[in-house]
């Protein structure tokens, strides 16, 4: 029973990480109806960019406290050209195709990006422990936790809140919601739908890259980093309901807590429970917890 505090702390931290990792995926699906496998690639690109550039920055002896800003800027600057190129050169010609076909196209792009990453950053791991170590740790019920993880929780809240604000309280966001609702009508009314799709893909990919960047100091950045993230973030957004922002939050909390419980009480079932929960949720609510009603067919 004395494990409960650490179950909660671990669960919250893991949920925050999952939410951050899944946010871009659900945004892109919600707007563009694309199940985006390159999400994992952008996560990895963000992690690599952050790790390599931050390491270079620190090696030159610049103030370590600013390394957090370097993480963020590095991920954005490196990932953005990839996102823009992929949307402009490939994806925009596929919007008319079936959802599953677009998924396959993003899978192909994922395979390509896996190797592009290796070509750019090589196959040796990158470590940047400084941003992580710098903040020290805090205690909950005799257990020490890295303070950096609190930063992750804060970042998750900021990203989620910021995205919600962007979608619901700004003019561009409201127009975007109209585009989601009916791209054809929006186009007829003079909205540049293509530009909204580009912006969405860019934003979603940058969110993935930022999640990778924030994770980079806590792991060793190695090839294949994004591969696990893809299925995990799929699980999160599918549980919550593809395309739903509150759904992603709920999905992240569910998966985070379930995993934390399992790690503390039945560690051999850690991976099993996550996908078991996903399958169970889909069995009961075929379109996830926060799903929209299906349109009328006949």
């Amino acid at each position, binding site marked *: 029973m004395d494990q409960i505090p650490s179950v909660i702390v671990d669960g919250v931290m893991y949920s925050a990480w999952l939410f951050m990792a899944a946010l871009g995926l659900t945004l892109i699906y919600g707007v563009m109806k694309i*199940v985006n496998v390159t999400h994992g690639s952008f996560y990895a690109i963000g992690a690599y960019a952050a790790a390599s550039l931050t390491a270079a920055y620190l090696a030159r002896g610049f103030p370590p406290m600013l390394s957090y800003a370097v993480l963020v800027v590095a991920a954005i600057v490196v990932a953005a050209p990839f996102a823009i190129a992929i949307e402009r050169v*490939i994806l925009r*010609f*596929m919007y008319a195709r079936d*959802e*599953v*076909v677009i*998924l*396959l*196209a993003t*899978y*192909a*792009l*994922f*395979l*390509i*990006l*896996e*190797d*592009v990453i*290796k*070509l750019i950053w090589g*196959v040796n791991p990158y470590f940047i422990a400084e941003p992580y170590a710098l903040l020290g740790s805090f205690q909950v019920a005799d257990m020490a936790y890295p303070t950096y993880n609190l930063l992750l929780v804060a970042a998750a809240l900021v990203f989620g809140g910021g995205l919600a604000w962007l979608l619901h309280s700004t003019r561009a966001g409201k127009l975007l919601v109209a585009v989601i609702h009916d791209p054809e009508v929006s186009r007829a009314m003079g909205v540049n739908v293509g530009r909204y799709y580009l912006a969405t893909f860019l934003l979603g990919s940058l969110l993935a890259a930022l999640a990778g960047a924030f994770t980079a100091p806590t792991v060793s950045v190695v090839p294949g980093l994004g*591969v696990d993230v*893809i*299925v995990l973030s*799929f*699980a999160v957004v*599918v549980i919550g309901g*593809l395309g739903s922002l509150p759904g992603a939050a709920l999905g992240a909390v569910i998966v985070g807590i379930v995993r934390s419980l399992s790690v503390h009480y039945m*560690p*051999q*079932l*850690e*991976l*099993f*429970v*996550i*996908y*078991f929960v*996903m*399958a169970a949720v*889909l*069995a009961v609510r*075929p*379109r996830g917890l926060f799903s929209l009603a299906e349109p009328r*067919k*006949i």
Partner: protein
Amino acid sequence: MRRDRTVAVIGTAFVALAAGGPWLPQWAMFIATVAFARGLVALGLVLLLRAGLISFGQALFYCLGAYTAGALGRFYGVSDIFIEMLVGGAVAALVAFIIGFLLARYRGIFFGLLSLALSMILYGLLVKTEALGSTDGFNIAPSTLFGVRPPPEWVRYSVLVSAAAVAAAAALIVHRYLQTPLGRLAPAIKDNEIRVEYMGASARKAVHVKYVIAGALAGVGGALAATAVGHIDPDMAYWTTSGEFIFITILAGTGSVVAPFVGALIYGSIHTLAYGLSPNTWQMSLGLALLVLIVFLPEGLWSLATRHARRT
């Protein structure tokens, strides 16, 4: 209408392989055997794809078949390749039958993602099961045929011919199934399920049947791959393995029951070649190939052959 030459093609190919096989180098026999294993999985995916469904979790059954074969050897001392394939296929079919009740209700992206989750469940279990070697998996004893252990230099050949025989049988069975009234229903389910229901058929039941057939085929393929490679591990259930099968299926297209095996052979060859040439960019070649296929040849490589035939 063109005459259906599928049966003749399969028969000829089998005889040619069995007769010419002994002259193949060992590595080619290995590549061909693994291609049969993957081709069996892709054949099942073709069945589903014809009905508009893509399973991102077919590695579930592949891995089940492989671990069934492995467990037969490890715990019961069975190493007969046909028993391994038979039991591997049966276990996979049984599991497909059970989860089919759930999965047959799903379409489109949700079918794919749920099947993905189910395969990841198996992966999650296997990596933590020490009795089955956890992440490392375990080795499998060399195969015997009907109780006879072939001399070492003939093992690869006998496994290859067994694989070819099973693949040929599977292709013929699926070919026949596709000509039955319910087998022909696949494009109708893909196009308009409401109409299928209103014509008096159950789309869900048809999907369920296809899912069980596809599961059985993947199970047989997994058992075959296990004895051919001599080693199994949980990565056989990982989503990237399912991705390979989808790649082969898209490469082959849904036009013929022979195509998945050709697709698997091409995939295996590209893989071996590209990996040998440049271990860090082989995935890129695959990705580019897949992208080109999706954009320019959505019906798969097979459509090149039939398009040509139609013109002449």
